[in-house]
């Protein structure tokens, strides 16, 4: 909830006048702030995007979090703890931003736990080896940074401010991931094999799922999908929520990763990758979105596992949250702390014996 949010009704102006004012504001590159009038579609699109992003951060803690206890050096353990911690933080920044749009954090978490709101399907991939933690950070966080850097200038103020924090911190994630992979590539043949195997498994989730469906024909969409995707993207771009198509960002990601992989001596698992002099970009296999989403969609073993893990933590913690609330209510009511006298201790003993 943002400071001073009020329930005051919109000023008595006609809807189209408000809309014109709103669109002019966005077109001039100004920021929309929580109490400004905004079209319902804008609010809904933002909420969906911010919630999905927040959920992705929280669910994204799991594949890497599973390796915290097994990190092979204390330095790497520290780095991984700091990274997973940042992800929790990013989730919280984003939930706060979503709350300025009138959503309630408890409802958002509920929607995640019930499978009603999505998170990036990338994280439905299992992290099978230590090298996966490096590949996730280098590739999926690398993709995230490319996706998110333009969001630092997104039209909605609280979202843009949250994203500036996220991006600053995310840069460390990518660098440490690349560094982790480099250490493996410079290590024993077994370590190098582990690194290559991880890249083989994480390349597609990053390149396909982190950027969303193709929204241009060049990006591999059929004419109808491209038109549909382009329409959604156009809307988001017009509102200043997005600044680029999914496929533009995907291309930027591939262009960035190919030379990095070469420096590491790793092969990206796409035989179509080659430099295209004419385009000034790397060519790569267009994303077969439908097939990919079906294989890694919302109802796979890992998708269920991720949500179940999250839900279990939430349910197991219910009594703790209730206790914190009860304590605060009691403090607010000015109830003197119990157990300060002999009576308290005696009662404690009696209850323990009972």
């Amino acid at each position, binding site marked *: 909830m*943002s400071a*001073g949010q009020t329930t005051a009704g919109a000023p008595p102006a006609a809807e189209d006048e408000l809309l014109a004012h709103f669109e002019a504001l966005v077109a001039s590159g100004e920021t929309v702030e929580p109490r400004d*009038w905004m079209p319902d579609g804008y609010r809904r699109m933002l909420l969906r995007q911010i919630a999905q992003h927040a959920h992705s951060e929280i669910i994204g803690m799991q594949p890497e979090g599973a390796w915290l206890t097994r990190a092979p050096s204390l330095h790497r353990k520290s780095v991984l703890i700091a990274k997973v911690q940042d992800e929790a933080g990013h989730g*919280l920044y984003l939930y706060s931003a979503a709350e300025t749009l009138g959503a309630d954090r*408890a409802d958002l978490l509920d929607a995640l736990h019930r499978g009603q709101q999505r998170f990036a399907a990338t994280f439905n991939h299992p992290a099978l080896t230590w090298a996966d933690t490096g590949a996730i950070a280098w590739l999926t966080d690398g993709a995230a940074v490319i996706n998110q850097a333009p969001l630092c200038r997104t039209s909605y103020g609280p979202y843009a401010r949250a994203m500036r924090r996220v991006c600053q911190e995310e840069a460390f994630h990518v660098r440490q991931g690349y560094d982790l992979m480099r250490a493996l590539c410079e290590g024993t043949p077994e370590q190098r094999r582990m690194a290559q195997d991880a890249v083989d498994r994480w390349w597609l989730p990053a390149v396909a799922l982190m950027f969303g469906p193709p929204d241009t024909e060049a990006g591999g969409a059929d004419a109808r999908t491209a038109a549909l995707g382009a329409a959604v993207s156009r809307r988001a771009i017009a509102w200043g929520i997005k600044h680029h198509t999914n496929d533009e960002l995907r291309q930027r990601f591939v262009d960035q990763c190919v030379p990095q992989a070469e420096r590491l001596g790793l092969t990206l698992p796409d035989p179509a990758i080659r430099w295209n002099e004419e385009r000034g970009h790397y060519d790569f296999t267009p994303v077969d979105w439908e097939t990919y989403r079906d294989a890694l969609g919302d109802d796979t073993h890992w998708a269920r596992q991720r949500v179940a893990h999250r839900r279990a933590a939430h349910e197991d913690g219910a009594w703790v949250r209730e206790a914190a609330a009860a304590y605060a209510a009691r403090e*607010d009511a000015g109830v003197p702390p119990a157990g300060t006298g002999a009576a308290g201790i005696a009662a404690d003993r009696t209850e323990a014996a009972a």
Partner: protein
Amino acid sequence: MSRGREGAPASWEVFVRPRRGLAHQHVGSVRADDADTALGRARDLYVRRGDPLSLWVVRSDSVHAVSPDERDPYFSTARHKPYRYPEQFAPLTQEGPDGDHDQ
């Protein structure tokens, strides 16, 4: 009253003084049932990096704000009073309108 809607903990606005010489800046919000917890959470969330000088939390519902309907009466009067701005007046030096800023 420590509960927000839907039984969620209350919302608190977080302010940090990042370094000497600066005012506290609003950095975001946290949810917590009480002030001590809010401070701890604000620290964990907003000062993982950097070494700020101080940290405030304020209950979000304690912030009183001008309602959007009243924006004009509150804020749109300044442009009709140009005489409040120095550049409306003859410069103090020969260097032109910007020449006397530091005097």
